[in-house]
């Protein structure tokens, strides 16, 4: 039937893009037909977001052509893409907290009447849009800053919808949405579909992909490895395409029972604004995987344990001693380290040298760990660590911003290792890191566990989660939805994460 379908709304041919030498996209072909929901799936770092940003004019491709509505286009800025009729819902929010919902929704394309911004139109227009996705409860004239994350996500979507786009890009649109909101989103997407709008839909949630899409393109390591008609594709097939390799061969061996040491970390009945009733135990030598959808509380858990967004209730003990993790500093002193998912914003100091970045923590909390040693010794140790993590850089004086994602992550790791932490918290340790470096990081994580550290690893990347973890807990709505033993399947995880095992299987 594909023959009968109209000519493509969007056609990407041989799109290639590199950042600082890292090849992120490589000869990607992709077509979206009017009224089609085209899902793009793939591991984190497979290049999905970059591809979307190329289409939206945020990035310009190094090679390849973008064809929109039958004409070859080169979008030099988001503005041009928007004017051409391409809307995008970004993964990270692009809202101004100080401005009202309406002002955000209409930013850049405020409705005019006699050359002036037509406030009434703006408000009513926004109200309609909100109503159209069943979010009429959000008043268009409240400051976005006053809304919760989920509501902000809705606004983000509405913002993209606002410019009657012919092609709408949705990059993890349901990330922060509650289930009922998700259903409304479905309805919305279908409505768009009927209006002949093409939708590029990026998601981790297989369920959504199968519920919504007409076709699916699988990205892997920057290449489009397959485009499938959803109708005649099964979840297993899709997963195979996505992973497309024997898991075990890619991940270091798991901990053997005798390698597991004493309990390092216990959490009892802990919670805060984002988490409720958290109970968990973490043993020396083990890697505890934390799964769940974005916004399910998996990152919040790591941040709470690190004191960045502390628990307000419950007890935490480290090596049986009760600790109060009020601040990162307190956590660090308790022997906890944290590798954030936001490397640029929370991991590195881009304009400082490799050495300075690696020394940052030791310098900050001299009193703990081997930091007490003389500066010379300390620096020497950090140099060893940088070597140990097999950092590839021009030298220890090179500015970190010139390193690849993988090497930046290694620097961050070295920073923490310098404190010889007993507990390491990883949030998406390999996000935005190319495959080569990934396994290096994985090996490091495992080696740390073997050396007696207790590791908690948050990952939205199922293969990684399954491949690395000795045990997996899955988060949903700020709670621990369930725990899985090593060797669980992706479907098991998704089932717990989405809370509907049957459907999850597709």
């Amino acid at each position, binding site marked *: 039937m594909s023959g009968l379908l109209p000519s493509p709304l969007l056609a990407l041919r041989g799109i290639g893009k590199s950042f600082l030498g890292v090849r992120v996209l490589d000869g990607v072909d992709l077509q979206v037909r009017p009224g089609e929901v085209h899902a793009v799936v793939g591991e984190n770092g497979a290049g999905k977001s970059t591809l979307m940003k190329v289409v939206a004019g945020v990035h310009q491709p190094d090679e390849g052509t973008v064809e929109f509505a039958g004409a070859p286009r080169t979008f030099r800025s*988001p503005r041009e893409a928007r004017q051409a009729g391409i809307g995008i819902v970004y993964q990270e929010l692009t809202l101004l907290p100080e*401005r009202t919902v309406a002002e955000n929704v209409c930013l850049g394309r405020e409705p005019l009447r006699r050359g002036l911004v037509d406030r009434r139109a703006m408000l009513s227009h926004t109200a309609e849009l909100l109503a159209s996705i069943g979010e009429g409860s959000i008043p268009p004239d409240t400051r976005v800053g006053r809304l919760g994350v989920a509501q902000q996500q809705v606004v983000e979507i509405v913002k993209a919808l606002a410019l009657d786009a012919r092609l709408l890009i949705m990059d993890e649109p349901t990330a922060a949405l509650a289930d009922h909101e998700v259903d409304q989103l479905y309805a919305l997407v279908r409505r768009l579909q009927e209006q002949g709008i093409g939708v590029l839909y990026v998601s981790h949630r297989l369920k959504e992909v199968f519920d919504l899409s007409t076709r699916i393109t699988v990205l892997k390591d920057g290449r489009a490895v397959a485009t499938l008609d959803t109708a005649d594709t099964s979840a297993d097939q899709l997963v195979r395409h996505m992973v497309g390799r024997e898991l075990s061969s890619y991940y270091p061996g798991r901990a053997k029972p005798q390698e597991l040491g004493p309990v390092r970390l216990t959490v009892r009945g802990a919670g805060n604004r984002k988490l409720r009733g958290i109970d968990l135990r973490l043993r020396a030598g083990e890697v505890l995987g934390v799964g769940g959808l974005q916004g399910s509380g998996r990152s919040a858990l790591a941040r709470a344990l690190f004191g960045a967004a502390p628990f307000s209730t419950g007890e935490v003990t480290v090596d049986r001693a009760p600790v109060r993790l009020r601040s990162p500093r307190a956590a660090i002193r308790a022997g906890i380290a944290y590798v954030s998912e936001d490397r640029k914003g929370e991991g590195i100091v881009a304009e400082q040298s490799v050495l300075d970045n690696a020394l940052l923590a030791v310098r900050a909390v001299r009193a703990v760990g081997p930091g007490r040693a003389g500066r010379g010794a300390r620096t020497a140790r950090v140099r060893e660590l940088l070597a140990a993590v097999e950092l590839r850089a021009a030298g220890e004086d090179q500015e970190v911003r010139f390193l690849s994602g993988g090497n930046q992550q290694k620097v961050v790791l070295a920073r923490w290792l310098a404190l010889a932490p007993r507990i390491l918290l990883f949030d998406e340790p390999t996000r935005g890191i190319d495959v080569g470096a990934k396994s290096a990081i994985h090996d490091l994580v495992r080696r740390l566990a073997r050396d007696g550290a207790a590791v908690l690893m948050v990952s939205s990347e199922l293969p990684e989660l399954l491949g690395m973890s000795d045990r997996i807990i899955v988060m949903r709505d700020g709670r621990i939805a369930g725990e899985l033993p090593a060797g669980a399947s992706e479907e098991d995880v998704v089932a717990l994460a989405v809370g509907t095992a049957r459907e999850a299987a597709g």
Partner: protein
Amino acid sequence: MSGALSLPARRTPPGVFVALVLTLAIGWIVVTVDGGRLFSVPTTVSLLHVAAGLGLVAVGQTLVVIGGSLDLSVAYVVSLSTLVAAETMAGDDGALLPAIGLTLAVSAAIGLVNGLLVTTARINPFIATVGVGLLLKGYLDNGYDGPAGKTAPALVQSLGYQRVGPVPLSFLLLLAVAAAAWFVLARTRFGHHLFAVGGDPEVARLSGVRGSRVLVTAHVLCALCAGLAGVYLASRLGAGAPRVGTEGLYDLESIAAVVLGGTALAGGRGGVVGTVGGVLLLASIDAIFNQLEVDVFFKQVIRGVIIIAAVAVYARRAMRKAS
């Protein structure tokens, strides 16, 4: 909250007006006890005149600050404007309009330079506008030995001294300009985009806003306001005065008024209504201390404290909002 209110103005914290009322109330009591009269017509007129000059500059300053920038060259723009105006008029009413036109053109040009230095040349606004200020200072020092030119009598009588009841024409001008600025911020794309650029340039960009263009426009408008202030001062002084801007500390005081009005120095939050409040607050302090014949140095100290305290309060609120 109805839609009509959902605008920058609504976000202006009333704090400054509370402070204003309190100041006036307390001031009035103290002055009365001291045997003076705070709200006598001449005192009120003087207060409003002082407010008018500073206010015009501060309204313009508000725009650049909302955009996340800063203009420290305004004091010199003011001085220059008085001279351009007065010298072009040379006491001739006929030359009135051309003179005002020329003055505004000159200041707009300076604003353009500021804007381009900040956006195109990517120079930090602080350095850029201070640098431009130095250029102007050199020109003024070199070219003028003191007051020069003669303002058209018509302007002196009207803008300079005419008043409606206790309200000077100049203050009405300020209100008009402030209203216009409020309108621009609330009802034009430029206004909306300015808040976006000040709030988060990247978000603005992703939303298709042309950041540089917006910021340059803001700088031009700011300079225009300074130019207008110059015209007013020329009408008040009857001549051009090469130092009136720096003596009036218009650069410093305009920023003080802006932050007192609740506009965030970081940009993206605030509005002109608050600024007008800030201006009136500063002017009232002036008036009260005048009545009490308080030492100006003491006043200086008080001002320093008030400015810091005010911003600290706003910062607290912002934090509470955030949490």
